[in-house]
């Protein structure tokens, strides 16, 4: 999808940003959606979702470095985040 040669540093920085920012977006939207979906009293749902969010964040950050390319890393984190954000908006 990208024929332009990229410098090593650019790719490393891109993956790092994907891990930190993309991973956060993924974890934050997942936590919001989870809190809205869980069949628990609202305080319990929020606490459960927020407690789990850091495990999701860690998994997302690892995925950003395991993905075949930096572009894939961004796509695999931001597209689900976007979908979850829309779903959460619909539910809220």
């Amino acid at each position, binding site marked *: 999808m990208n024929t332009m040669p990229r410098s090593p540093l650019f790719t490393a920085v891109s993956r790092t940003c994907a891990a930190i920012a993309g991973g956060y977006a993924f974890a934050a939207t997942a936590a919001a959606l989870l809190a809205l979906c869980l069949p628990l009293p609202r305080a319990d749902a929020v606490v459960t979702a*927020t407690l789990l969010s850091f495990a999701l964040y860690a998994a997302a950050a690892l995925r950003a470095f*395991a993905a075949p390319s930096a572009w894939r890393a961004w796509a695999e984190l931001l597209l689900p985040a976007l979908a979850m954000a829309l779903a959460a908006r619909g539910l809220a």
Partner: protein
Amino acid sequence: MTGSFRQRMASLHTWAGLLVCWLLLLMFTSGTASYFRDEINLWMKPELHGAAMRPASATQAGIAAVQVLQQRAAQAKHWFITLPTARTPYSRATWSGPDGKLHTALIDPATGAELPAARDTHAGAFLSRLHFDLHYVPPQTGRWIAGLCAMVLLVSLVSGVIIHRRIFRDFFTFRPGKGARSWQDAHNAAGVFALPFHLMITYTGLVTLMFMVMPSAGQAVYKDDKGALLSEIHPSVGKPAKAAGVPAPLAPIGPVLDQAQRHWHGRAAGTIGIANPNDVNARISVTRAAGGDLSNKQPAMQFDGASGALLATKGDDASAAQGTTVPATKGGGVGTGMAQGSAVPASSADTTSMALATHGVLYGLHIARFAEPLLRWLFFISGLAGTAMVATGALLWAAKRQRQSGAGARLVHGLNIGCIAGLPIAYGAYFWANRLLPLELAQRADREVAVFFAAWGAALLLAQWRPGRAMWRWQLACGALLLGGLPVLNAVTTSTHALAVITRHAAPLSVAAFDMTVLALGASLAVAAARLGRQPKRTPETLAPLSAMREVSK
């Protein structure tokens, strides 16, 4: 980026670790010291050592504190009392003065007398705040940075486990004197030895900050009503009451504390809050002392301050709650029409739900109030292992690049010296300043903190100026002298030192324990400095230069 999954995880581990290792050293050391925050508080306030020799019951201490508050602040709107524990042997009474400022008095629980003001020091609170506030940045910023560091550490721990093929066998492997190979073995050992602790302390550290760094779930459910979220997670006991302006004598606190202790099956109260004291609408809230269980959330009881009657309970253990009847639990609080969170679901009112209990336990695990001496020491040693894991990781990075002589490698070498050998100097200097700064110095507590950062800053700068073996030795020796000299300093400047504990039982045991601990830490630094001096300069390890940047980028 090509290469196997494991190789990619290795480069992630290497670079993520390098990014945060020096800040993590600060967080690990100050956080580890915070396990003994109460003991450090006592050591740094020798004026209070006397009170530590006269233990008293919670009820006795509560009666004494209320007596002092009646004399000092009978008209205050709110009183707050922290009762003594085995680790903090005095009561603390706080009230808001007519000017709105908070005032505090320390009370000897046995004699009931107000203790003379101790020297002005932030003591252990500085160290525990340092490990998540980072002191010189605004607290919010500091916590975001600390949260990011914790997240990077979590990712580093998981990726470290992934790349560690022979996690069990390697644990028993140590090849000393072999440069990078030895640091690798030490890094593995320190990481694996306390891996459950490292994972626990990192995740629970994030949990303590979670509503700040991960607010999305709360925002999605509560919209802008952050107050409702917090009051449902930390429900207050009973309903607040407004002062009626009709004076009424405060009910005696002794029977109230005894009743609470019976209700909690013998576990004593930890804090007492009294709203509108000496008013007909006075309310006494008693919260159980932490320590008998993992959670940081403790049950509480509310009493009518005029009659001493029980009004409400909160957060009882499921078993305890069944056997107790609370008269008129939600009973007509006076003037509570505006009580916030009127839509609070019943689930979180009386007994704690699973989710909130889990949150409480995770939070409680991090601050470890429950840990009795043995477990506390195990946590402390695990914290030191965490420090060693970060330090050996940083040294390993440098050892693998020994033959590189760029500005980057030089910077890393200098930072390693300034943080690994320099931080003990900063801690030592902080404790020396506590004993040596004149007592009447203005803003003395802040000056002590300034000494900490001045010492650390000097160590960091000197290390950048000449990052080499001599600087390692010099800084390690300096830290050894400062920490190892503390027992002597304590003996010279106070009468309640380790010798007084051992020979005459005339000082609290925890003071002697502090003296012995810093002596041991100083001794190990001295051993490190001596070993560095003895070994001849090694030939650089012949390791293929790890072209990790290239690896990342493929």
